[in-house]
C-alpha cells in the first residue's frame, strides 16, 4: 500500500510522514471499500446495463422503465412495495409503542426482577429467523393445534383461522411475528435513554406534583424523543431490507399468492430466479438500486429534517 492508493492520506502532511496512521487505517479501509462500497457502487452501475445478444450494453434508464411499465414486473413491484409499507407501519404502530411501554415499566425504580424480565424479553431478538419462522409456523398450524387449543381456553376458538395461509391475514401475521422477535431492540434503547434522565429532573417534577402517568407523558417522553427517532430509522432500514423471516415462513414465493411479498423477497426471486422464472442480474440490480434509493431517502429525511428539528437536552 502506497500513499497514492489512499486519497485521504495522500495529502501533504506537515510532520514527517506518519506511516502508522496509514497502517492503522488500511486494513479496515480496504476490506470495507472492497467488499461493501465498491459492490454497492457496482450494483448501482449494473442497473444501467443489460444483456443484449450475450453482451452487456449500456441501456440508460431502460431497466427502470421496464420495472415500472412491464405489466407483470410492475405489478409485483408495487405489490412488494405496498406490502413493505404495511410491514413498516405495523412495526411502527406495534413494535415501538410496546417496546417503549416495556422500557417504561422496567425503569420504574426499585422494581424487583427487572433484570430477569429484561433478559427474558430480549431472548427472541437473538434467535435466528429460521428458528423464529418455524416455531411460529408450528404454533399457528391448525394441525398441531397449539393456537386453537389456547384460544379454546379463553373461549375464542371460533376466532381461530389459519392466518398464515390466508391472503388477507398472512402479511399482518408475519409482521406481528417479526414484531415479537424485535421488540427487544426498542425496549433496550429506550430503557437506556430513560436511565440516563437525571434524578434531579424527576425530583423537580415531583416537587411540582407531576408524578406517575403524567410524569411519563410530560417529562420523560419529550426527553427520550431523540431515541424514539433513532429506533424509528433503525426500524425503517431494517424493514425495507428484510428478507429472512418471510423466506423462512412463507418461502421465496412469499405466498399465499404474493400477499407477503416484500422488496427483499422480490429482489431474491428476480436476481436468482425461482422455479420457472429465470434469474435476471440486471433487473436484480435495478430492484436493489430502488431499495437503496428508498433507504437513502428515509435516512436523509431523518438526518436532515427530523434530527435537526429535535431538541436535544444536555445534562
Amino acid at each position, binding site marked *: 500500500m502506497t500513499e497514492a492508493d489512499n486519497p485521504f492520506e495522500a495529502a501533504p502532511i506537515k510532520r514527517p510522514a506518519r506511516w502508522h496512521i496509514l497502517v492503522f487505517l488500511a486494513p479496515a479501509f480496504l476490506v470495507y471499500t472492497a467488499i461493501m462500497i465498491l459492490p454497492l457502487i457496482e450494483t448501482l452501475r449494473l442497473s444501467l446495463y443489460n444483456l443484449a445478444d450475450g453482451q452487456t450494453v449500456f441501456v440508460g434508464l431502460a431497466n427502470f422503465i421496464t420495472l415500472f411499465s412491464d405489466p407483470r414486473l410492475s405489478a409485483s413491484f408495487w405489490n412488494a412495495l405496498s406490502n413493505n409499507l404495511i410491514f413498516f407501519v405495523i412495526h411502527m404502530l406495534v413494535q415501538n409503542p410496546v417496546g417503549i*411501554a416495556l422500557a417504561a415499566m422496567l425503569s420504574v425504580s426499585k422494581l424487583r426482577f427487572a433484570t430477569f424480565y429484561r433478559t427474558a424479553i430480549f431472548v427472541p431478538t437473538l434467535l435466528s429467523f429460521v428458528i423464529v419462522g418455524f416455531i411460529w409456523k408450528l404454533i399457528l398450524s391448525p394441525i398441531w393445534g397449539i393456537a386453537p387449543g389456547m384460544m379454546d381456553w379463553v373461549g375464542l376458538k371460533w376466532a381461530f383461522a389459519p392466518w398464515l395461509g390466508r391472503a388477507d391475514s398472512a402479511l399482518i401475521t408475519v409482521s406481528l411475528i417479526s414484531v415479537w422477535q424485535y421488540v427487544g431492540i426498542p425496549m433496550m434503547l429506550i430503557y437506556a435513554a430513560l*436511565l440516563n434522565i437525571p434524578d434531579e429532573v424527576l425530583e423537580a417534577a415531583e416537587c411540582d406534583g407531576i408524578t406517575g402517568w403524567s410524569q411519563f407523558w410530560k417529562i420523560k417522553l419529550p426527553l427520550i424523543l431523540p431515541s424514539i427517532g433513532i429506533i424509528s430509522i433503525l426500524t425503517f432500514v431494517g424493514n425495507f431490507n428484510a428478507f429472512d423471516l418471510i423466506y423462512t415462513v412463507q418461502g421465496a414465493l412469499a405466498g399465499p399468492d404474493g400477499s407477503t411479498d416484500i422488496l427483499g423477497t422480490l429482489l431474491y426471486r428476480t436476481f436468482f430466479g425461482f422455479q420457472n422464472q429465470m434469474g435476471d442480474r440486471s433487473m436484480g440490480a435495478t430492484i436493489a438500486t430502488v431499495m437503496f434509493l428508498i433507504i437513502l431517502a428515509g435516512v436523509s429525511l431523518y438526518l436532515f429534517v427530523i434530527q435537526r428539528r429535535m431538541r436535544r437536552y444536555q445534562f
Partner: protein
Amino acid sequence: MATARTSYLRTGLIHLALISYTLIALFPVFLTLVNSFKTRNAIFREPMAIPTPSTFSLVGYETVLKQGDFIGYFQNSLIVTVVSIALVLLFGAMAAFALSEYRFRGNLLMGLYLALGIMIPIRLGTVAILQGMVAAGLVNTLTALVLVYTAQGLPLAIFILSEFMRTVSDDLKNAGRIDGLSEYAIFFRLVLPLVRPAMATVAVFTMIPIWNDLWFPLILVPGEATKTVTLGAQMFIGQFVTNWNAVLSALSLAILPVLVLYVIFSRQLIRGITSGAVK
C-alpha cells in the same frame, strides 16, 4: 395510606404486565425445547406437557445426528463467526484508534465514509458481491463469508470503539511516548487493554447477525461442505417437514448455542447498551 395502597397496586399491575410479556417472549422457545424430547404421539396429544418417563424420547435428535451433518454445520458457523469477530475487532480497533487519536487531513471525511455502512445495508450490494466472489473463485468457501461479515461489522465497531477510545487519558499515552514506546506499542499495550469492555460489547453485537444470517450463506456458500447452522437447519427442516421430532430437535440444537452465549454475555451486552455504546 391511600398513596401506599395505590403504589402497591401500581407495582402489582406492572409485574403482571411484565410477566405476561415474558411468557409471550419465552413460550415458543419453551414449547420447542420441551417437545423435542417427546415421542411423536405425545407431541401431538399433549403439546404443552413436560416430558414424563413414558413420553420421553430422543428419536428426533437421533434422526438429526444421523441425517444432517450438524457437527459440520456447527463447525462452519463457529469458524466463520470467530474469525469474522476477530478481524472486526482488530481492524475496527486499529481504525478507531487512528480516527480518535491522530489529527490528519481527511479525518472527519474518513470517519463519515466508514460510518456510511451503519445505515446502508451491505445486502444491497449482493449482486456485485456474488459477481466478485465468483471472479475471485471464493464461492462455496468460508473465506467469502468471513470477508462479507468483516465488512458488515466494521462500521458499527469503528463507531463504538472510537467513542470509547476518546475517553482513554492522553497523559497515559504521552507518558508512553516519552518512555519511547512506538505508536504501535501504545495501541497494543496501553489502549487495547483499556477498551476491553467496549470490545466485548462490539463482539456481542457483531456475533448475533453473523450467527443468524441466512441471506449470504444461501447465496454465497450453499454447498454441503460449507453450510452454516442457520442454512443447514433451514434445509433440514425443508426436507423433514413432516417429521416433527426431527424438526423440533434441529430447532433446539440451533437455539442452544445462542442461549448459552447469551447467558454468558448478557451482562456485557446490557451494560454495553445502557452505557450508551449504541446511542
